[in-house]
């Protein structure tokens, strides 16, 4: 079957991307691609630049050099339409970043209403559906301050997915979840990947990486290893910096 140029283009393309903060080189000449419908996980100890890498994708941070393409958008272009880009890219932040003055339901539905223009009933129905899949629909009227870390993390995931993005960035999305919920989240994301949604995730969690990823890379000292299919059982990466990646990578 002939593939159009648009459908053959990767969802995310990094070409020789570098980023430093003051004297610290966070990313050094990083290159990789995420194909459409593919799930790629980046592993590595804390502080090695995984969050920065994700923030570069949706232009919350700008690289010092290199080229980044997300779908049809040149993210490194000075005339980038950031809002248009972010309509295609959902983000789940490491610290959840829920809006504390809005309930779980409002957190998940407000983007649909204000950005996508959905009616309240439709937005809340979608929100409730996602919250139910993540087993927290009964907590929809609670505020973030009344939720546990794991519950907040699931609300944050629902908020990103509710916008029907084509690409989702996941920053330690299972850090506060128990193994059963990790499997459930991975299963939900695999189902979405089958519909063409692409994922770029950072994670220490070997279980999650094994369950979701098509490819895994290891980020250390600013350099990303070649992306490889994950082993059947990935180790959980120690949070302290390490000199070399685990053997499975």
């Amino acid at each position, binding site marked *: 079957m002939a593939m159009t140029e648009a459908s053959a283009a990767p969802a995310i393309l990094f070409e020789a991307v570098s980023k430093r903060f003051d004297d610290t080189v966070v990313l050094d000449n990083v290159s990789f691609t995420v194909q459409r419908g593919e799930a790629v996980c980046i592993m590595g100890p804390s502080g090695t630049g995984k969050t920065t890498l994700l923030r570069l994708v*949706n232009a*919350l941070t700008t690289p010092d050099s290199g080229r980044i393409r997300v779908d049809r958008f040149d993210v490194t272009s000075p005339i980038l339409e*950031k*809002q248009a880009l*972010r*309509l295609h*890219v*959902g*983000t789940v*932040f490491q*610290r959840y*970043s*829920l*809006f*504390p*003055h809005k309930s779980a339901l409002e957190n998940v539905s*407000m*983007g649909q209403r*204000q*950005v996508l223009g959905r009616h309240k009933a439709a937005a809340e129905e979608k929100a409730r559906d996602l919250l139910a899949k993540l087993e927290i629909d009964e907590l929809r009227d609670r*505020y973030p*301050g009344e939720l546990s870390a794991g519950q907040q993390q699931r609300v944050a995931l629902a*908020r990103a997915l509710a*916008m029907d993005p084509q690409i989702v960035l996941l920053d330690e999305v299972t850090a506060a979840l128990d193994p059963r919920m990790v499997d459930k989240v991975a299963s939900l994301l695999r189902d979405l990947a089958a519909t063409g949604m692409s994922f770029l995730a950072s994670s220490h969690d070997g279980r999650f990486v094994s369950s979701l990823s098509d490819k895994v890379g290891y980020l250390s000292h600013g350099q990303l290893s070649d992306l490889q299919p994950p082993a059947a059982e990935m180790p959980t990466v120690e949070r302290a910096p390490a000199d070399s990646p685990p053997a499975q990578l």
Partner: protein
Amino acid sequence: MSATLATLWYWTPSLALGFLMNIIISIGAMVLGTAIGMAVGLGRISTRAWIRQWCWGLTQFLRNTPSLVLLFYLAYLLPYEIHLGSGYVLPIPGWFKAVIGLSMPVIGFMSDNVYGAVRNIHTDQWDAAEALPLSRYQTMTSIILPQATPMLLPPWMSYFAVIVMASSTASMVGVKEILSSATIAMESITDPGLVIPMYFYVLCWFFLFCYPFSHITRWFERRKWQ
């Protein structure tokens, strides 16, 4: 003593009317100053550099000039009346000039507080809003200001009490408020022994009105906002 109290009681309606003028001037200054001050404060985080600089400069000027001098300046700057077409004349009363004059420090105060409250919202909230992606207007109105506003209320309540106390300076520009009413009363009484009781009585009016605000302010600070 009974004669002193009787005299003070006799002049109480006049003083009450004067104090009402203090309250009106204070409320007018707070309403006008709050509206403009919030706009100036939000202007300090504008994406346009010239707006940020202009708003910063205005705030610095208003925060570092004495309100009494501003009041005098505006009292002479603003005309007594404006001549409109067809022979119609719009008077500019003294109390209105006092409202304008006292709104100036309120503008500076609100600008600083709005700017500080907005800056106090964690950058994670800005990132999450941008990532949704909410527009800047939606981010400010739906996310940032609703979180910043509860932080503004306690200092705003305290500053209202400050403006009420400062409203007595309106007497310097000819407004008949409580201090000038007390002075008129003393000119009528011509008893120097009543000077101290009369002005102490005026002090009590201000104290009894302003002191409850400190309790209300503490209540706001203790209250949990969702």
